[in-house]
């Protein structure tokens, strides 16, 4: 089998995934708007997906790509459910501020 | 079969009473009374059979015995059996059950159906505890008493009912858990040694094991029973629960639930682990004496009438603990006698206090005083039970306390002398009870109806039983004595004690 030369080194790919994930997390923590928080979650999911792809490419296995497909599906489902919830919440609270919705404290 | 009927009847009457509440509020109480009356008849049949049984043969351990497989895989059987001791306590249960129903007759107006459902189920649980001879079944009944009692306190209780109910539940449950562990431990040890997985009381008797293990298992049982009894320092739930419960609940708590603790000690804790119990006896006797004196001093200090009576229970049950761990014929007979007599005396006192509260709307003695002039019959009947409670000869309490002390004297003179001081302390709080309520000058002017005929009949019957116990206790002593003789480890411990 011919080895496909690696165009991107593993470390750089992982670094990118890590940075993306950190952006997503920071976004999730600092933004209060639910839409932006959802987007941040998307970024984190995609960061994870990127990590899988890079790892799959490194080991020349299809598993990484398959996992990415799963994550993609999951993300789609998550967004649809999430947006629906956001819509409902917006109707209920008339705002998208996540901090305003803290009724679930014990 | 009668044994099953005793329990099933109450279990069945409970839901019926609950359902028929819709038809009218008088239905539940009549159903409860009816079921208990039938039970009383059944128990009396057992009593007459006992006499026949004694005259025919003095052999077998049980007067009635019933066993059916339940969960054979774990060696669990539905095993009920009755000997003299159980019979006495069954009679007491049903008798006090009747009085509790009568005491609640007018007091309970809301959700009466559910009330009598709970009342009947507690009684069924208590009966089960006194009859079960399979440890697993015993535990089931033990827990069955708990939940309805919780509801009785938390739904129909007084001001701090929820607090009291939760406290009651937590204390008892903590003890029960330790007992469950001990039951399982005993079962496993027995299974390891013989290869037989069983929870049956008689098969588990005489299981040999390491001294330390035996002590820990015994303590597991002791924990549950000491909480129920209650022995100081596990008594903290009692005053709250007794005070906050409705009258019927207080009667059952004081008269019966406490007795399940004493019964458990006599039936399980000591016979299953005779050596460990003997090693532990000095501590338990000391706890008994502390309970006698501590409870009495606390009772004296109370201004809440129900709390006063509640703490007097702690003192009285101290005698029971002392008697049980003296573990000789006289002291044990005394302990049984004290259990029955205390059930009646304290039950009656709770009925009286409850009726007084129903009339005056308060239990605070600082607002009473001089009530004799207003309600003389009330005063006279309370006086009778107060002096029974201080252990005056001629009452069953005297027989109980005297026998306990007489028996414990041979085991430990010092402890007995201290416990005898409890007799003085009992006078102090019993007289204080009378002085602060019925005697003395009136602090407020009350107008209240005197005792109703319904109450007079119930309390009159209780006085009659009390005097009968005091002057001719022989039938009770015979019934209990025969059962006590058969207890496992009875002879051994007595022998050891008389040597020392």
């Amino acid at each position, binding site marked *: 089998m011919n080895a496909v030369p690696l165009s991107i080194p593993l470390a750089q790919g992982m670094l990118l995934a890590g940075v993306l994930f950190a952006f997503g997390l920071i976004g999730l*923590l600092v933004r209060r708007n639910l839409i932006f928080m959802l987007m941040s979650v998307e970024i984190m999911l995609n960061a994870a997906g990127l990590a899988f792809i890079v790892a799959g490419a490194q080991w020349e296995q299809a598993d990484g790509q398959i996992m990415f497909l799963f994550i993609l599906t999951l993300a789609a489902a998550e967004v649809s459910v999430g947006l629906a919830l956001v819509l409902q919440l917006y109707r209920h609270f008339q705002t998208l501020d*996540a901090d305003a919705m803290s009724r679930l404290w014990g | 079969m009668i044994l099953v009927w005793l329990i099933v009847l109450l279990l069945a009457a409970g839901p019926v009473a609950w359902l028929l509440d819709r038809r009218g509020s008088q239905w539940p109480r009549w159903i409860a009374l009816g079921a208990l009356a039938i039970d009383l008849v059944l128990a009396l049949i057992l009593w007459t059979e006992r006499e026949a049984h004694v005259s025919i043969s003095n052999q077998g351990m049980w007067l009635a015995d019933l066993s059916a497989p339940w969960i054979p895989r774990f060696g669990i059987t539905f095993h009920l059996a009755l000997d003299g001791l159980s019979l006495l306590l069954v009679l007491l249960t049903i008798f006090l059950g009747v009085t509790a129903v009568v005491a609640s007759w007018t007091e309970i107006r809301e959700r009466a159906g559910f009330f009598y459902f709970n009342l009947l189920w507690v009684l069924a649980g208590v009966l089960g505890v006194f009859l079960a001879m399979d440890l697993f079944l015993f535990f089931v009944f033990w827990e069955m008493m708990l939940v309805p009692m919780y509801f009785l306190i938390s739904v129909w209780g007084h001001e701090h009912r929820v607090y009291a109910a939760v406290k009651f539940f937590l204390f008892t449950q903590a003890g029960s858990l330790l007992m469950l562990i001990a039951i399982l431990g005993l079962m496993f040890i027995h299974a390891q040694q013989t290869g037989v997985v069983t929870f049956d009381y008689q098969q588990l008797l005489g299981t040999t094991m390491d001294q330390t293990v035996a002590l820990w298992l015994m303590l597991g049982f002791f924990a549950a029973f000491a909480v129920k009894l209650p022995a100081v320092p596990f008594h903290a739930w009692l005053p709250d629960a007794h005070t906050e419960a409705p009258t019927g609940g207080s009667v059952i708590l004081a008269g019966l639930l406490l007795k399940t603790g004493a019964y458990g000690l006599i039936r399980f804790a000591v016979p299953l682990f005779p050596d460990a119990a003997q090693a532990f006896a000095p501590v338990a006797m000391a706890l008994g004496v502390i309970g006698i004196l*501590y409870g009495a*001093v606390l009772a004296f200090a109370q201004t809440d009438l129900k709390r006063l009576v509640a703490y007097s229970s702690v003192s009285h049950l101290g005698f029971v603990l002392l008697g049980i761990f003296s573990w000789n*014929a*006289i002291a044990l007979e005394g302990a049984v006698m004290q259990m029955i007599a205390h059930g009646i005396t304290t039950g009656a006192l709770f009925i009286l206090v409850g009726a007084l509260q129903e009339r005056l709307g308060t239990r605070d003695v600082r607002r009473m005083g001089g009530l004799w002039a207003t309600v003389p019959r009330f005063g006279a009947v309370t006086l009778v039970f107060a002096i029974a409670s201080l252990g005056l000869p001629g009452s069953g309490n005297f027989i109980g306390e005297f*026998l306990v002390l007489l028996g414990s004297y041979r085991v430990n003179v010092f402890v007995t002398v201290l416990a005898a*001081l409890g*007799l003085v302390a009992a006078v102090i709080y019993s007289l204080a009870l009378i002085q602060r309520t019925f005697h003395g000058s009136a602090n407020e002017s009350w107008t209240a109806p005197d005792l109703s005929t319904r109450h007079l009949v119930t309390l009159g019957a209780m006085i009659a039983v009390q005097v009968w116990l005091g*002057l001719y206790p022989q039938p009770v002593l015979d019934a209990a004595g025969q059962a006590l003789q058969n207890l496992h480890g009875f002879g051994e411990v007595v022998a050891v004690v008389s040597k020392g």
Partner: protein
Amino acid sequence: MPTRCPVCGAEMVDLLWLVPALSLLGFLTLAMAGGWFSRKTIALIGVGSVGLSMVVAGLVGFAFIGSSDSPGQPHDQILWTWLQISGFGPTIGFYLDPLSLVMMLVITLVGFLIHLYSAEFMIDDEGYRRFFAYMNLFVVAMLTLVLGDNLLLLYLGWEGVGLCSYLLIGFWYRDPANGAAAQKAFIVTRLGDVALAIGLFLLFTHLGTFNIQDLMARAAEQWPVGSSLATIAAFLLLGGAVGKSAQLPLQTWLPDAMAGPTPVSALIHAATMVTAGMYLIARTHVLYSLAPTAQTAVAVIGAVTLLLAACSALVQRDIKRVLAYSTISQIGYMFLALGVGAWAAALFHFTTHAFFKALLFLAAGAVIQSLHEEHDIYRMGGLRRALPVTFWTFLIGAASLAGFPLVTAGFYSKDWILWEAWASPLGSPWLWGAGVTGAFLTALYSFRLVFNVFFGEAKTEVGSRPGLMMEGPLIVLAAGSLVVGFLEVPRALGDVSLFSEFVRSVLPSFETTASITTELALQIATMLAALLGIAAAYILFLRRPGLVTAVTGTVWGSALSRFWIEGWGLDRLYDTWFVRPFLWVAQTNKDDLIDRVYTGLAWLIRQFFAALHRTQTGQVRWYAAVLAAGSVVIVALVVLS
């Protein structure tokens, strides 16, 4: 031929059970159905039941003495076995012998007279029925005490009389002071009862029975003289006796017990219940013979008590309190007699004392009622003319109490005790000296009463006068206070020994070695003590009252007088040492310190909960941050470890 009952044909002595049973019937009727009766019916039942008891007791007594084949033979009537457990089998059974017969006769006779008196005395009281119910119950309990054939039944009676005493002291329940006095009486005597109960445990554990006769036989058999067990047992029984009989150091309850109606004081706190201690010791005298230390203690307690109480009686102002201290003092004489082994003399003094002290109380009650509930003797006076019957009977009672020579019963019984205190092997001149000093003081305080109440000027107007039902018993008791003494006359003065012969089978006497001249000399000393006391009273309280006020006016005089009025400060002592600490402990621990441990535990758990609670903000971003931080920590842990 044993005497048979003319009605039922049963053997007469077998009617013994009826004596307490009749009074019991009276009690039950009054307690359960009395609400429907008129006052007349109530009195009829209350007095009648005791009267019937008295009649039956008399018949039984005659049968007992007169039975031709076995005169004076003890008779044990067992009704049923009380309880039976492995060797422990006390019965409900009545034992009749000369000792219990004397007690029974005195109790029923004096009891009946006092009931009769009360029927008039209490007529205006709202608690008429309650009074008679309690009184009847008392008679039952007292009879059970003296008739019980075993110590447990005796104990039943013992506690029963204590209960009735409590109920009757606090009879007028509205006044909290009466309730306090009643509770004090019950609690203090109960302290003694606990000692008695422990004594019972000891006796049963070592001798294996409660039957008194068996017990005494076994004790004599198994325990040598002076054995420690016998001594301990005797001391424990003595503890019960000093409680019930109000001797040192438990006598403080009796003066306060005067809060009860006067007939109660007469019956319970003078004639019968308080002498139960004497009865107990006399009944178990075999045990005391085995324990010389304990017996000496009895004598010393008796001697000291009689002196202390006599001093207190001297200074009281309340007529009933004088009599109460006098009772303590006279029971001191009985204990003195018991302590020197003069069992019969103690019983004899009990008998005469029952008559004259009941008489004194009833007469005092008549005085008090006539003067509108006036108790202070310094506000009485001059009643000689206004209440002649009361005066003469009271005078006879006081003379008897003072031991007025030759004609009064009190003289003969007291003289007997003093003689034995000297002549008995256990006696000593010291004990005799205490007794004679006591005799002088007794005469002094009794006539202090007579002179202050009946002589001098009238200070309070006389209201109602006692009627026939009150005066009748007074006269009968006065007659008794005079003639009962002639049952036992000392050698030098006529030598009658009916009483000591009668009880000899139960209460043995000892051979005396002292000569008749010594006896006569001592008797003259006793007479002189009494006469001197009366004379001194005459001078101090009637002729020259200034002398007394001169003495009490001084600093020391007034201090001493106050000290005596307070009963030698014992009340205060007990208050500081026992009552207050107990109250303090009770009050401090009112909310149950052990409960604090549990509430403390609950508090801790709640704090823990509160700490965790703070992390639960409900903000999604906070959760996400914590989630991230947690993951970082876990990863770091895994990587770094």
